[in-house]
């Protein structure tokens, strides 16, 4: 599996971020940490991809941001899912499932 997000399919990063945020509001560092952990260190999302993506999602009103305090008392910007974002997550998940299933089908055929 690719080590970097640049190799991730376009749009996949959006999906990963939305999924991660669906559990609880998080700051940028925590998001990248969580994705790394969950993917068994396979996905290491660089800040250069993460932040433009977060800002884009915010502009599209899928997520909200708010300044808050981390567990070790550091002020950081926390992102949370909006209603629109939740809807987007469920449709995108559906799309992804269908897409990956189709890709798998084709791969098995040959």
């Amino acid at each position, binding site marked *: 599996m690719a080590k970097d997000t640049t190799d991730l399919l376009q749009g996949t990063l959006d999906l990963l971020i939305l999924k991660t945020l669906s559990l609880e509001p998080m*700051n*940028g*560092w*925590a998001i990248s*940490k969580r994705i790394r952990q969950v993917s068994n260190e396979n996905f290491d999302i*660089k*800040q*250069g*991809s993460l*932040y*433009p993506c977060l*800002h*884009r999602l*915010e*502009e599209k009103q899928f997520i909200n941001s708010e300044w808050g305090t*981390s567990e*070790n008392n*550091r*002020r*950081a*910007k926390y992102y949370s899912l909006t209603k629109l974002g939740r809807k987007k997550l469920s449709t995108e998940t559906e799309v992804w499932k269908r897409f990956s299933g189709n890709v798998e089908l084709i791969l098995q055929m040959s």
Partner: protein
Amino acid sequence: MLRFLEQWFNRLLALFRNGSKQRELDMELQAHIELMTQDYIRSGMSPEDARKAASKHFGATEKFKEECRDSWGTRVVMDLIRDIRYSARSLWKSKGFAFTVIATLALCIGANTTIFSVLYELVLKPLPFQDHERIVKIYNIPKGGQRSDFSNASWSQYNHLNEQADLFEGFVLARPLSRTVDGVQRDVSGVTSDFFDLLGVRPLLGRFFAPEEVHPGPGNVAILTETTWKNDFSSDPNVVGKTLQIFNEVPYVIVGVAPRSIETLYPAASFFIPFKLIPSSLNPRYRTMPRSDLWAKLKPDVSREQGRLHLEAVERRAIEEYHPQYMNVWEMNPRHFEVDPPHPLASSLVILQGGTLILFIVGGINVLNLLLSRSARRGAELSVRHSFGAGKAVLGRMMLIESLLLAMFGFVLGCILAWGGLFVFNFFFITLFPKSEEITLGFTVFIWSLVMAGAIAFLAGLLPFTALWGSGRIRKTDKSSRSSSTDRRGRFLSNGLVVTQVAITITLVIGAGLVIRSFGNILSVDPGFDAAHVIKGRVVINRVYPDRRDWLDARNRILYAMRQIPGVENVAFDLDRVTVGQGVNHDRFSIRGGSANGEEQPHALKVNVNSEYFKTMGIEILEGRTFYSGLDEFDTSYIVDESFANRYLEGGVTLGAEVHVEDPPLNDEDWKKIIGIARRANFQGLESRDGLPVVYMDGEHRPQWGFTILLRTERESESVVRDMQSKLREINSQLILQQATSLDKPLTKLHMDRQGVALLAGVFACLALFLSAVGIYGVLSYDVKQRQREIGTRTAVGAKKSNVLMMVIRQGIWKTTIGLGLGLLASLHLTRFLENQLFDMAALDFQTYFIAILVLLLIAFIASYLPARRAVKVEPIEVLRAE
């Protein structure tokens, strides 16, 4: 849509918050690094190492900061500003082009906005009342009469309709009057007590009239208009209860103030008084009475046409049921109810609006053509930009912004022009309709013009671009395609546009030609009287001499005094305002032996005059004589005008016929002899030539409460008027001379609207001709430029200069001819709408058509000749070298 707006709003806000967002991003990234460092420390690194590792892992921030900024959306706004600046600069570089486009747009938008402002204010604007679409004014118009002949409702009709016409919520009466308040003559409206209720207005102060206040009796009350309250009483909150001193009447107590909305119905009135019920007016014989307005409100969901039919039915039933003796009469004269008549200028304005719309299309086509040829010239520039990565959307947006900029300037200038146009219009308008309010540029009209400017901007921006893009020239970088004919699409488009332009122009030119010729026809009508040296003035005597028995004597004394004024040749009077074009006293006549045109009871205006009237007015007696004067009794004979004789009398202008007002007399000796036939005098303006005929009666022994004095004199009118006033004052200091001027002054006003329409139609037609000429010229000269290589080659292989010249001119004429053909077909249909506006001519006027075609061909020839001459100058060697 809402989200879209919100997004744009946020973008604009973001533009202002750009700085703070930038700082926020920095802080966010800083926090990220620190959180990372802390995690590294927790996993056992030294603080120093942790910080280094974090920074290293984080990498360079500038690039993705940029990416973040992109996602904020301010980018779009910044791009837009850059595009606007770019477009403005490129327009500045081709000032001639920009100026032509802006001037054309300004002219077209200005003309449209001006005319539309007037049309909207006078015709289209709804009344400012609740359920205004249901409020109508009801007219009784006699058969064969003109609009100015109408007589209106009376108490009898008002009461009856209120009882019987159940498709209406109610009817109210109103009557414009005049009263002298503190020595100043003021316009007043007499209204029934339900007037304000029907219109749904509430008093600003106090109350409106109570039903019993319309009944005759003591106790006069008045309601001020808001304007009078403001101007004359400085908005005094305690005005209710004060009194108005009205000349010769018991003081009026002010009981309330009406809101301004009511002034749209009677703009001249300064206050309202109750419409006093005169018991005699309940007499069904007086079902119609001069100068009373009947307003009504339709019930919901009843159309005007339903209302009109219903009224006619009710009216017919009323005659059958209540006045069977008049049945024959009424059936002979079915009254046409005209609901909600438009302003007298309405039809002229609609015609002019049609003209300006055509002008707008012609101008718009020019703008489109100019932008087409400009975009074709810029093919190379666009294709360079395209190869550097600007996509269709970016290039399209750039072109659109350019045309939007042009349209915006055109719109602003157009509005300024319209403002000036309205200023000029108001000057004439107030002269023509002295009691009207000035017309200003309203919001609705403003929006309409904005939409027009926007539409032309989108068309002129996107159409040339799509044509250019479709031709494929932008996407190819091949340079040789520039001069080949790959942009056939653009040329086809602009040729089509020129043809359309010519077609539309010819309809406007023909329309204007018809209007102008018709105006000429009107001017060539003989007025039938000589107003140049006649001075008129009106005297009302019943307020000074309340007793009817004094009236005759008073009038004779006044006329005698007038004769004493030096320089006065003749003195006459008119008891019925016919001479000043306001005659409303018309009647049916019976003619012994029947009317010549088969009409059993023809209509005519009645006017009571004295024997000197014809001499004073310069009206020729064609046959017979005038009345005898100085008799002790009425001269019971009549004098009729030419029009009466020609239309109704057997044998035309010959004496001897006998007539009688209304029904034939019971005794044969009561028939009235016609002793004279006078030349037709068109008192209501030259167009009234075919209006109601006039019957002159001897008024010398008829007492009347007011009359019009007519003096013939060579002296200058102002000093005579002064003499007339002093003579009147000598007789009784309370007598007032009203509306005293020379008679031809109001007459010249009568044609001012026609004159204005003819003038403006002519101006619009000339503008359209000019714009078409520019259009033909523009397209041909662009063509010539495009075909330089071809022309050069032709010349090189021996084509003569005259051949080249003819080739280009032929092209111009050819396009014009196609346009003319189409335009003539359209004109045949469109001019039919003008038909009832034309005087003494058919809409299919050969002469007008012929001249219009000739003018257009001539102009097309000139417009083609100029580019053709340039084509001749093409040097083959130059062209080939350029290749």
